[in-house]
């Protein structure tokens, strides 16, 4: 089977901690340039999925392909090369708090490119302008709000213009307006940069906005995957509860 069209592919991946299987023979793929939202209740292995993709964790069984490279078999030097093609937006941004906003975004550019300081400064301004934070260049991460930190994290994750962007809970701790702004930024990046995204979220409304494909994890297994419309038609109770949760919120707001 050709893997050319898939930027990311999980093939029968199993991962456990302390004897408990968090992921049990999980298989899914993400076509290049599309966004896949992985959803599920807390503790169902969503974030583990991202850490496996980045090679921060090794699967107990199965194979993981990133840009057609089987990553669980790579040594640390090989992983470094793969990671240069991946951006990661962490749940709480994980900005380096000893560096300013500008230095955070410049960090991967200084490490992995041969750009001059002037070129790096220009690139940092561009990346920050893309997330609307050009004026915050000199501020320290601890002085920023949660939404601003998330946007700086996005600018840093996208600094090297990776072909794949991994996003962990983009709406976590944010108000609905900021959540929508972050979702719009992600959608813009996907459309403009043709970036493949794997977004872990429990926010169905976000998933509907960002995702071309939705995957629902439950008790270590994938119980449904497809477009939002396909999942709306799914008869599985857990899937229905998930997909209807944002409708219930909307109805409650309207009442």
């Amino acid at each position, binding site marked *: 089977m050709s893997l050319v069209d898939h930027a990311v592919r999980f093939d029968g991946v199993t991962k456990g901690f302390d004897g408990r299987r968090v992921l049990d023979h999980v298989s899914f793929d993400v076509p290049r340039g599309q966004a896949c939202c992985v959803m599920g209740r807390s503790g169902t292995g969503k974030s583990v999925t991202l850490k496996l993709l*980045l090679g921060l964790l090794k699967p107990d069984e199965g194979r993981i392909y990133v840009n057609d490279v089987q990553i669980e078999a790579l040594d640390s030097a090989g992983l470094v090369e793969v*990671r240069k093609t991946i951006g*990661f937006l962490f749940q709480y941004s994980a900005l*380096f708090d000893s560096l300013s906003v500008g230095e955070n975004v410049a960090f991967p550019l200084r490490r992995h490119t041969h750009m001059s300081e002037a070129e790096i400064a220009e690139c940092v301004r561009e990346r920050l302008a893309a997330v609307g934070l050009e004026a915050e260049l000199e501020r320290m991460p601890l002085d920023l709000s949660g939404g601003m930190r998330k946007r700086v994290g996005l600018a840093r994750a996208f600094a090297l213009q990776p072909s794949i962007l991994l996003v962990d809970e983009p709406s976590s701790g944010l108000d609905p307006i900021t959540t929508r702004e972050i979702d719009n930024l992600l959608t813009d990046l996907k459309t403009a940069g043709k970036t493949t995204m794997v977004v872990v979220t429990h926010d169905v409304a976000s998933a509907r906005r960002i995702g071309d494909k939705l995957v629902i994890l439950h008790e270590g297994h994938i119980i449904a995957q497809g477009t939002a419309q396909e999942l709306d038609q799914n008869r599985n109770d857990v899937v229905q509860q998930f997909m209807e949760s944002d409708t219930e919120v909307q109805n409650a707001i309207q009442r």
Partner: protein
Amino acid sequence: MHVVPAPRPARLRPVHFDTAYFRFGRHSPRIMASSSNFPGNLLGTFLSEAGSIGAFGLRAIRVAFQSPFELREVVRQIYMIGWRSLPLVVTSGMAIGVVLSMHTRATMERFGAEALIPAALSIALIAETGPLMTGLLVSGRVGAGIGAELGGMRVTEQIDALESLAVDSFHYLAVTRIVACMIAMPILTTAMNFSGLVGGFLAETTVSNVSLRLYFHQAFAGIGFVEFVAPTLKTVVFGFIIGTISSCLGYTTTGGSEGIGRASTRSVVLSSMGLIVVNVLLVRMIFLIFPGGAM
């Protein structure tokens, strides 16, 4: 023949070394009651901990010689660890010099040997007091700092963020700090020794008319190359111990803010203990290598 069955060895529990040894408070009854083999448990935990730290140190030595060498970060850490510790070390050194000088004078006066005060002070400082005091001060200031900083980075996923940016976090964070500690320690020790001698001179000038030139001439009269270099170079090992223990505990932190606090405290306790114990071995080694010259 009646055979008494051997007591079943208690299962090793993950009791933290400092919790068991140094916080005999509310924890101790639980720990004591949890096992009938309390000392055995502690020994097992200690050996396990020492093994982990030893493996961390060996990995650091291996990785230190691999590219990229992270020189910019090493220099930054020398500034953070060395330069920023200098006021503490110099101030403490002067105070120690004053106190040592007063004690030495009180003893020497009885024998009418006041002229030997500078030499006695310099021997005491350079051979042992300077290196050990510098080690303890640095393990307090820097050990706690590294433990808390790396622990905080681990808990807030900043270490994972480094890895996600294709950076070897072990090399970038741990190895650079260990190397910086090893470079900074002899320099700080020399500063401690010198400021101690200056403190001693200041104390002497209040009770005698000794000139600065004469004082330092007498102080260095008995100090040869070996007497200075051997004790100063042993602080490179102190730096390795402080850097390795505090980096290991910070880098492997788990358990949120409580974990950060624990990593910080344990960094100070274990690195202080480590360098005091290793100092005994190093002094013995120096005496073996330089039987006539070492102090």
